[in-house]
């Protein structure tokens, strides 16, 4: 039985049609993957269903009833729960208070009946197999627990259909297993899920059926059992770009970056020699210390012990400016928070870092910057109309390319990239891998921190696996397999370095 049937949905913004005649239906008790690159129309379609956007034409039937004039409230009360990437929880309230928000149980005196609410929260969590203390502050919870809480909250509100938008982005593998277990249990109870994710391996683990959108149009729907990740990737991108071989064998130069028993908050005893032109993939479960180590090399985190050499020169650490002067660049994780200057134009976002290195000339040479920008725009294939447009007018992938352009323009030799393909679509990802390889060919050294091992397989000369803040194992290119990396990352296997 179909719980949701959307037919012929069309929607345009300011005269531009963003989705066109889309059919989308979900069966009761299934996990349905909604796939497509950024800008394919997934979010628009889901926002229509959740009542955030209205639509121009088409029909939506939910639970056998046609829904008209959907508002957020109506969509919720009909039983649709939209679990956003940015969680909608109140951090300063306790867990049970979040669940009972606007549905508080009162005593006869009209005061809050906390005991009863806490008891019911326990009941709810027990029935779901969720291990969270109802009296804990939400701000104290790990991200994964927050995700589970969000789902539990929706269950409590009698949701039938859950829209999960990239639910695993900030989860480690253990937490993902937890989430998937919960999804499977709820599925057995007849709840339905729409699962949006860029990670194909997850889709093939959890989903039953899929629908692919591309450029705002319906491409294909079917059963996961009848397809392959390769086919899905190809349908999403529309060309065979995602699959082409990227890695090139290169001759490496001398050691350019050397860590000698480097310690800091979150990592310890990290020793690593990196050669000019080398691409190193770093990986580890969340909190394994790769991010922290990168920040320390960049001067953004205090080095408590050990030595750091760049080009043979010992670095004092703690100063981003001196790391930059010595040719280090860092593409930080969480682009929105740590990289994008929201009120800046594309052009300003590109040159903000270069400016700090060229203070000898305090006045901006606009003409020269524009020339450089257009050069970089071609090199990186940035899809933008006008360099004076706001950076926010670009898609995630193009924003990330602007950030890459920012660091390329500093003339850096060593690039630390912390999760550089986070939240960007397959096409842009492939372009970024290619770019990293081009950079390496030109003698740049690139360290990439990522949780996605296929990414590392595409580009890395070596793979450094972290566990609990130290290097567990360094794998050579031919040794890198998903299984091998996971075994070291989860401490099932210990390397000589560990």
């Amino acid at each position: 039985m179909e719980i949701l049937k959307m037919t012929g949905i069309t929607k345009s913004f300011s005269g531009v049609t963003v989705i066109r005649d889309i059919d989308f239906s979900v069966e009761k008790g299934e996990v349905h993957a909604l796939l497509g690159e950024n800008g394919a129309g997934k979010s628009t379609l889901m926002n229509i269903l959740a009542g955030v956007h209205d639509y121009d034409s088409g029909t939506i039937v939910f639970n056998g009833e046609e829904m008209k004039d959907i508002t957020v409230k109506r969509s919720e009360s009909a039983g649709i729960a939209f679990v956003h990437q940015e969680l909608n929880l109140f951090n300063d309230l306790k867990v049970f208070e979040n669940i009972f928000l606007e549905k508080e149980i009162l005593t006869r005196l009209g005061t809050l009946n906390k005991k009863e609410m806490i008891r019911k929260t326990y009941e709810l969590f027990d029935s779901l197999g969720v291990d969270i203390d109802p009296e804990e502050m939400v701000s104290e919870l790990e991200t994964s627990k927050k995700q589970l809480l969000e789902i539990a909250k929706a269950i409590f509100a009698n949701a039938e259909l859950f829209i999960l938008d990239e639910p695993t982005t900030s989860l480690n593998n253990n937490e993902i297993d937890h989430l998937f277990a919960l999804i499977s249990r709820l599925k057995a109870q007849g709840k339905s899920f729409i699962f949006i994710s860029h990670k194909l391996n997850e889709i093939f683990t959890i989903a039953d059926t899929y629908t692919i959108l591309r450029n705002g149009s319906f491409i294909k729907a079917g059963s996961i059992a009848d397809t392959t990740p390769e086919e899905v990737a190809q349908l999403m991108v529309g060309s065979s770009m995602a699959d082409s071989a990227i890695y090139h064998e290169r001759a490496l130069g001398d050691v350019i970056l050397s860590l000698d028993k480097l310690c800091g908050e979150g990592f310890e005893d990290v020793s690593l020699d990196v050669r000019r032109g080398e691409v190193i993939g770093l990986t580890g479960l969340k909190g394994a210390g790769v991010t922290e180590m990168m920040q320390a090399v960049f001067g953004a985190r205090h080095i408590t012990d050990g030595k750091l050499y760049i080009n043979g020169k010992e670095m004092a650490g703690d100063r981003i400016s001196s790391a930059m002067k010595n040719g280090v660049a860092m593409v930080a994780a969480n682009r929105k928070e740590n990289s994008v200057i929201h009120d800046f134009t594309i052009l300003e976002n590109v040159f903000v870092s270069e400016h700090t290195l060229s203070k000898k000339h305090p006045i901006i040479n606009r003409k020269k910057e524009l020339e450089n920008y257009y050069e970089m725009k071609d090199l990186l294939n940035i899809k933008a109309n006008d360099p004076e447009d706001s950076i926010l007018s670009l898609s995630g992938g193009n924003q990330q390319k602007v950030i890459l352009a920012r660091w390329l323009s500093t003339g850096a030799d060593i690039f630390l990239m912390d999760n550089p393909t986070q939240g960007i679509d397959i096409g842009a990802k492939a372009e970024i891998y290619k770019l990293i390889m081009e950079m390496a060919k030109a003698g740049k050294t690139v360290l990439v921190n990522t949780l996605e091992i296929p990414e590392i397989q595409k580009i890395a000369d070596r793979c450094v696996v972290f566990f609990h803040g130290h290097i567990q194992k360094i794998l050579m290119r031919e040794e890198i397999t998903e299984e091998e990396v996971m075994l070291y990352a989860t401490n099932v296997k210990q390397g000589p370095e560990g």
Partner: protein
Amino acid sequence: METKTTKKRKSIGTILSNYSFVLIFLAIFIAYIIINGGATTWSGVMNILRHSAVVGIIAFGMGLAIITGGIDLSVGSMLAIIAGFAVVLFNATNSIFLTFLFTLAAGGVCGAFNGILIGRAKMPAFIVTLATMLIYRSISQYYLRSTGSSIYSMDGTLSSYDAFYSFGQNKILTIPIVGIVLIIITIIMVFISTNTKFGKEIFAIGSNEKAALLAGINVDHIRVLVYVIGGVLAGLSSFLWLAMNGSVDPATIGKSNEMYAIAAVVIGGISMSGGKGRLLGVLFGSMSYTIIDKIISSLGVDALINDTIKGSILLLAVFIQIMLPVLRSRLAKHRENP
């Protein structure tokens, strides 16, 4: 996909909301001309510039602080302390040049004190400058009391006095010198904020401090500099005040000027949350307020109504700034599917 027509339409709308301060200024200016009628003179209009100078120059410093996401409440009190001690120095040295240097340097010191506490010690700007607002004026008043006088008064018998005082009154090609100083500062500040790397860094910090830091900007250092510049500008304002008035009452000089400066900044379209806006607006914002003073005095109504009108204009300005983009998008929507 964007066609030329939509692009053009967008730019007109954008200009309207980006330069709403010009609309507000023009509306007030036209009201002034209508009310004054035949009594409107060129020198009257030029006087607007002259009387905008003290608050206007302060407001540029305020604008920088607000763009970084901070604020400087101490600027009015800086006038009291800098101008007060500048009088003492002038009376002792009879030197305009030394007095000028002193005002700028003292402003720099007052600003650096704010800036170091805010930028390096990471104390909240509101609290730090609230405290120095109390401190600076109090020092000026306390010292004056200890000398036994009730105002700091420049010694009119000194040989340099006339030259100093006439600097505040004279005109070049019918434009008051003080007004010319305001224009020059405007040009410099607009240039710094739009064409220099330092200027961009100020905006970057206000827009996303963490990203600015990770992009290599020395956030602490820029913060300190911004408050130093604010102090130096307050010093320059103090110098102009002396040239225009010849004396300083530390209890009243610059009183509420920080509020007028904030209002000028906001009317000028600079966002209180930082990162957005144009310093050119500050000039128009402060002139708008000067014109209101003129209108009220030519209407002959009680000057106490002054702040009611200024406050209302502030509300109106912010209302327009918020409503214009909303109206624009509604209009665009209406045009597409009427």
